[in-house]
């Protein structure tokens, strides 16, 4: 008991650390240090493909690519003397930078004191005590913060429009209607650090002259709703919401509104209709909500992540915030990295970080070490970015140039086994389901595109279908009423742009080499390679494989459901697709 030092070890390549541990242990024993130093094996070091990692505490010196020969050097210099050993590479700096997620996983979201202890509500008190609304808006403009919900409109500019309009009542709304498949950044922020969103909204309310705000959160997030409601109560009880906040004479209060799960309600005019208690349908703009919004009053709608940035900006200064990121996109972005990636989760990186860094250095690479095919960003409104563009720095403009969008931050990683026709069908199907039906280009165009894609995946496609897809996409982009219809064709267009060959294989060769479109491939046993082990037969859930270990096996194509279990089970690559 009572170790003086600890050595943390981990093989970041995922190999066996035991031989290294034994050698290190032997060295410590020879030096008589076994009683004083504890060796701890890590499950994961947060860095990948960097050989053996060694961290010595309390010095906090971290080495990577450590070889067996280096053990003596580390023990002699770092363990005994507390100094960094020369000639061994140290850990590169952290790729993530947490601003929005600064408190997530740190504070108790149901206790306001936790947030206050980490300088929570200090930005609000600074704003109310020493700045007038115009100064607040100037500061926001200087920070260069752009809307994190997907559009990327400069937040300071948006606020200034609502500020200029004269009216007796204005509103600020937090858009927490996160609906992109695979995206859950906003949920985590609302659940993990609700007060930073409330603080951001109150500052926004002061800037535009609103006395009332609404948090529009989807009902599928019950925990987020409960925590936000509790946070509002606590903020009210502490005097950070309500009348005369911080003795400044500024009144502001918040209320939660639940969304019933319609994707289109994330669009601002549809969201306003929903808050008003009407059916969630968009309306043509202008007038923009900043001029005529909720109940025809000037209304600002900001995304959860945008709002969570605001306290940081006022605490640390707009200039310091603007130093982070790229020329056109300042600050950081939170991504929900999911799909075929080893370590799925939330990452927050400065703008300008490359997709490759996000997927490989932070996400740990592709599941089962397969080849990466593409990364899908922006959900159903976004597109795919193929492997050869992975070194593009991520910001609003670069992703736009590649035919995708930043979106709210969903990032789905696809490997070589994913079929682009199947993926386009999924996203388009999502938008067809979620279309409100008000305007024809979205309602009819989406349905027609989906019909064509289904035809292609059934092997009935013709080359002219690809042109038709492009034509309908163009019409939807030009003529749809809101963002949903204008962007619904993006997944199809971007896959057509980068993976036209895959489409042609479906249309011309009538083959789906990824084994996703069930009508376009069959599983057959290659008899020359088959070792008659019977694994395929035992794994088949529908008894479609007949035969015996003596005579060999055959797949009955009429019974086969193309589930692919036999394909995965075969150890000799004896099943072809």
């Amino acid at each position: 008991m009572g170790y003086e030092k600890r050595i943390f070890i981990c093989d970041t390549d995922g190999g066996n650390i035991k031989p290294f541990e034994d050698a290190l242990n032997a060295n410590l024993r020879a030096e008589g240090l076994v009683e004083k130093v504890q060796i701890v094996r890590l499950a994961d070091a947060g860095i990948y493909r960097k050989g053996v990692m060694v961290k010595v505490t309390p010095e906090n010196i971290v080495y990577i690519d450590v070889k067996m020969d280096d053990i003596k050097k580390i023990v002699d210099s770092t363990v005994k003397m507390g100094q960094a050993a020369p000639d061994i590479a140290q850990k590169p700096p952290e790729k993530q930078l947490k601003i929005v997620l600064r408190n997530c996983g740190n504070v108790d979201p149901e206790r306001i004191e936790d947030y206050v202890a980490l300088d929570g509500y200090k930005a609000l008190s600074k704003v109310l005590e020493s700045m007038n609304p115009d100064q607040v808006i100037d500061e926001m403009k200087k920070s260069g913060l752009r809307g994190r919900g997907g559009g990327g409109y400069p937040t300071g500019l948006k606020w200034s429009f609502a500020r200029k309009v004269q009216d007796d009542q204005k509103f600020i709304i937090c858009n927490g209607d996160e609906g992109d498949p695979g995206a859950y950044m906003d949920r985590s922020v609302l659940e993990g650090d609700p007060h930073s969103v409330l603080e951001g909204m109150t500052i926004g309310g002061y800037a535009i002259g609103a006395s009332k705000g609404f948090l529009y959160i989807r009902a599928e997030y019950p925990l987020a709703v409960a925590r936000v409601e509790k946070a509002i109560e606590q903020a009210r009880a502490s005097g950070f919401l309500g009348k005369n906040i911080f003795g400044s004479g500024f009144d502001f209060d918040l209320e939660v509104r639940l969304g019933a799960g319609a994707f289109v309600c994330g669009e601002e005019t549809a969201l306003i209709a929903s808050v008003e208690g009407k059916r969630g349908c968009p309306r043509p703009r202008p007038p923009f909500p900043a001029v005529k919004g909720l109940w025809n009053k000037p209304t600002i709608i900001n995304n959860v992540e945008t709002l969570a940035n605001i306290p940081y900006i006022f605490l640390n200064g707009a200039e310091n915030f603007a130093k982070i990121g790229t020329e056109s996109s300042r600050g950081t972005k939170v991504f929900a990295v999911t799909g075929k990636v080893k370590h799925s989760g939330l990452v927050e990186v400065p703008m300008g970080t490359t997709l490759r860094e996000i997927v490989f250095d932070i996400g740990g690479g592709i599941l089962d070490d397969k080849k990466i095919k593409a990364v899908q960003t922006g959900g159903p409104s976004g597109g795919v970015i193929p492997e050869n563009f992975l070194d593009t720095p991520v910001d609003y403009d670069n992703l736009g140039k590649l035919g995708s969008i930043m979106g709210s931050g969903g990032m789905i990683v696809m490997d070589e086994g994913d079929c682009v026709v199947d993926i386009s069908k999924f996203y388009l199907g999502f938008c067809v389901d979620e279309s409100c039906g008000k305007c024809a280009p979205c309602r009819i165009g989406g349905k027609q595109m989906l019909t064509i894609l289904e035809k292609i995946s059934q092997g009935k496609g013709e080359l002219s279908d690809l042109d038709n897809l492009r034509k309908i996409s163009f019409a939807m982009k030009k003529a749809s009423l809101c963002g949903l219809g204008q962007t619904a064709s993006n997944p199809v267009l971007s896959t057509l742009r980068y993976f036209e060959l895959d489409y042609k294989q479906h249309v011309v060769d009538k083959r789906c080499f990824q084994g996703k479109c069930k009508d376009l491939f069959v599983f057959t046993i290659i008899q020359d390679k088959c070792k008659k082990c019977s694994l395929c037969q035992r794994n088949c859930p529908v008894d479609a494989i007949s035969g015996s270990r003596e005579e060999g096996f055959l797949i009955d194509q009429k019974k086969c459901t193309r589930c692919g279990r036999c394909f995965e089970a075969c150890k000799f690559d004896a099943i072809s697709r």
Partner: protein
Amino acid sequence: MQKLDEIKNKFQQTQKGSWIKVGMSTCGIAAGADVVMAALKDEARKNNVSVRIEQCGCAGMCFAEPLVEVFVEGVPQVTYGAVKEDTARAIIQKHVMGKEILNDYIYKMQ
């Protein structure tokens, strides 16, 4: 500003000593964080250990939920991942009481 300082100072008085934080967002709870939380509290009570066991939000490493972050005086601050009920009990017994860090469960260090 003055009021904030009052709240802060008063709160910090109560925040001394060892603590454990369990990630209790949707991702954590789905992976079993509530069971882990109960096991930690139960084991601490049984052994009469004084340690604050609190909840927090999602730390981003959803692949390794449930996450349990532990701070004990004189021991480096670490985050255990993929914690099950038995690991939770071992955290109280070995890490908190014995000041010995558990092998093979750490996903993040301070």
